[in-house]
Structures are given as structure tokens and as C-alpha cells.
């Protein structure tokens, strides 16, 4: 029974949130509280973890909620089943909707209406990416500060080391060695190593 609820809540979350993982958060909190699945502490703790582990934020959150709920009720394998159900449910609407939209777009690609709408949305989406980019950059140098509340934000220590790292990575990501750029995955591994060295071994505060 609990799996039916899990499926239903996560299917709704997948179906009704536009704008990605963070837009889902209010609905996730609501569902979790309504069913008493997790304590607020558990959830907020995990939001930090979901941000710092690989993979889409919303998927991480769904898997975690599913695991915790199933595990509390039926033990380890119950947790595994819960994770499968919640993750599958949050992905299913995407799968259906995107396949339909892609089909429609393919067929009407030359239609003036579709072209006009795409023409209008493209710059908006690129604007959204810029906004996300600045948000991410700001979060690195000034943790816990958001653009929307810059005025009221209390002063947090400026993270110089991360700024230097960013400035070093930017040209590094663009140089070509034998006509090839460094692969982003290699850059991530490199940055993880540098992080361990700078913040872990040398214990630079940042």
C-alpha cells in the first residue's frame, strides 16, 4: 500500500513541476509531511547530500525518500523496492511527455507556429542558463547568498580560494592539446583532487 502512495505522489511531482529539480522541492516537502514519511530534519539534511552527490538533484531526492520509507516499513529490500518505485514514478511522466512532444515537433518542424514559438523561447532559456550560472558562481564564492535577497543577506566570508580555482579552470577548459580540449569529466576529477589537496591536506579555510 505504501508503495502505491509513493508511486502516486512521485508521479504527480514528476507531472506537475516545470523548471527542474529545485522547483519540485515544495511538492516533495508537502508529500513527505502529509504522509509522515520523513522528519523535516531528515529531509533538510539530505537536501545537502543530494546537492553534493552526482546525478540530477530530483532523482537523488526521490531515491532517498523511497529508500527511507520502504526501509522503515519492510527492512532493507523494502527500501530497495521503495527506491525503485519512487524513482520510476518521477521519471515516467517525463518519458511519456517528451516522447510525445518530440514526435509532434518532428512532424511540425517546418510549421511557422512551432518555429515562431521556438524562436521566442530560445533566448529565454539561454537567459535562464545565465541566471543559473551566476547563481552557481555566487554560491561558490559566497555560500548561502542568493541573488534575490542580496540586499538583506548577512555577510558571509568570501571564498577566495574557490574564486582562484574558478579563474584557473576557465582557461584550462578551453586550451586544446593536440586539437583536443580537456574532457569535462577529467576536469571534475582534477578539481576533486585539487579540493582534497587544498582544503583537506593543506587545510586552507574556504
Amino acid at each position, binding site marked *: 500500500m505504501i508503495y502505491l502512495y509513493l508511486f502516486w505522489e512521485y508521479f504527480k511531482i514528476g507531472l506537475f513541476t516545470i523548471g527542474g529539480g529545485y522547483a519540485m522541492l515544495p511538492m516533495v516537502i508537502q508529500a513527505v509531511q502529509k504522509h509522515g514519511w520523513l522528519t523535516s530534519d531528515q529531509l533538510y539534511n539530505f537536501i545537502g547530500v543530494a546537492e553534493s552527490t552526482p546525478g540530477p538533484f530530483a532523482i537523488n531526492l526521490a531515491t532517498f525518500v523511497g529508500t527511507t520509507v520502504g526501509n522503515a516499513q519492510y527492512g532493507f529490500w523494502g527500501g530497495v523496492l521503495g527506491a525503485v518505485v519512487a524513482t520510476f514514478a518521477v521519471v515516467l511522466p517525463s518519458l511519456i511527455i517528451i516522447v510525445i512532444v518530440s514526435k509532434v515537433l518532428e512532424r511540425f518542424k517546418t510549421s511557422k507556429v512551432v518555429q515562431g514559438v521556438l524562436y521566442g523561447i530560445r533566448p529565454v*532559456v539561454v537567459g535562464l542558463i545565465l541566471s543559473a550560472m551566476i547563481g552557481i558562481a555566487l554560491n561558490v564564492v559566497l555560500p548561502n547568498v542568493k541573488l534575490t535577497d542580496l540586499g538583506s543577506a548577512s555577510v558571509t566570508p568570501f571564498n577566495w580560494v574557490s574564486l582562484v580555482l574558478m579563474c584557473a579552470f576557465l582557461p584550462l577548459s578551453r586550451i586544446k592539446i593536440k586539437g583536443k580540449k580537456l574532457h569535462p569529466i577529467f576536469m571534475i576529477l582534477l578539481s576533486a583532487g585539487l579540493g582534497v589537496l587544498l582544503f583537506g591536506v593543506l587545510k586552507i579555510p574556504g
Partner: protein
Amino acid sequence: MKKTSLWQLFATFFKTGLFTFGGGYAMIAILQEELVDKKKWITNQDMLDMIVVAESTPGVIAVNTATSVGYKTRGILGAIVATLGIVLPSFLIISLLSYLIDAFQSNIWYQSAFKGIQACVTVLVINAFTKMFKQIEHDVYNYVSFVVAFAIAAFTNFSVIYLILIGGICGLVVTLLKQKKSNKKLVVANVQDVSDQDTEEVDQ
């Protein structure tokens, strides 16, 4: 475009899922490298249109992008395989971590590594942004709506859905108006052609 094997599709998205930190936007950089530069399955323009679709439809942006690339390259089966690929790393890692969350959170080595990764992710998003910016048409309309959309998204809590909706409507109106104008021009040009011919005939 070469035919993509389902295994390749799965492996590419699994790899992408494994190294995507900080949400869908950081993923764009990895996908550009893998899908556009290396494998050439899609172009940067396709990529932007897929992000447009992913942003304008419900669901997780990373999953939407994977589904849409999978569908474009190998149909419905491709969509399922790509989605499975992007979700599986999360699923495995988090299933495990759910039981070790306390140890994980207090691990100084992971925290240090993650601080480094965050700086790198920012750079990846900067690169993804510059590539996507090059793909929009460089006219006044695009520049204006880019700046307006950025400002609203960055400095207000205005809903992204409405922003996209308004963008789509404005784009449609502008395109139709342009078309009307060029049709008129065409008519005028035709009329001129005809009158030119008339004068020529008269001359003869």
C-alpha cells in the same frame, strides 16, 4: 548521422549521470562534449532545442534532455535506454548512501573534494552558457528577450513557467508579423515587376 547503438547510448548517459554535479545545467557541458563534439550525434543547435523542450515540459531537466536525445537517436527504445542510463548512477549511489548518510556528511575528505568540484562545475556551466548563447539568432529581438529573461529570472521570484510561456507567445507574434511584412514586400516587389514589364512593353 551514424546509427547509434543502444549500448553506446546507455553508456554515454550513465557516464554523464555519474559526473553531473549541481543539476541539469552542469550536465549540458558534459553532453556537449560527448554528443556534439565527440560522437556528433546531434548539433549545438539541436542541443539548444532539446534544452528548450526540457525546460518547457514538466519533469527533471536532466531526465528530459536524456529522453529527448535518446528519442532523437533511436526512437522510443532509445528514450528508455538513455533515461535509464542517466538515472541509474544516482539510484545506485543514493540507495547506498541512504544507509550511510551520517558518515558521509561528516567526511572531511569528501567535503574538500566537493569544494573543488563546485569551482569546476561553475566553469562547466560558463562554457555551456557561451556555447548556447552562440546558437540563438543574433538580432535585436533575441538580445532584448535574453536580457529581460535573465534579469527576471535572476532578480525576482517570477515563475519560470510564465517566463517561457510569454517568450513563446512573443516569439510567435514577432515571427508572424515579420512574415506579414515580408509578404507585403513580396507583393510590392511583384507589382513593381509587373509595372516594369508594362513600361518595357510600352517602350517597345
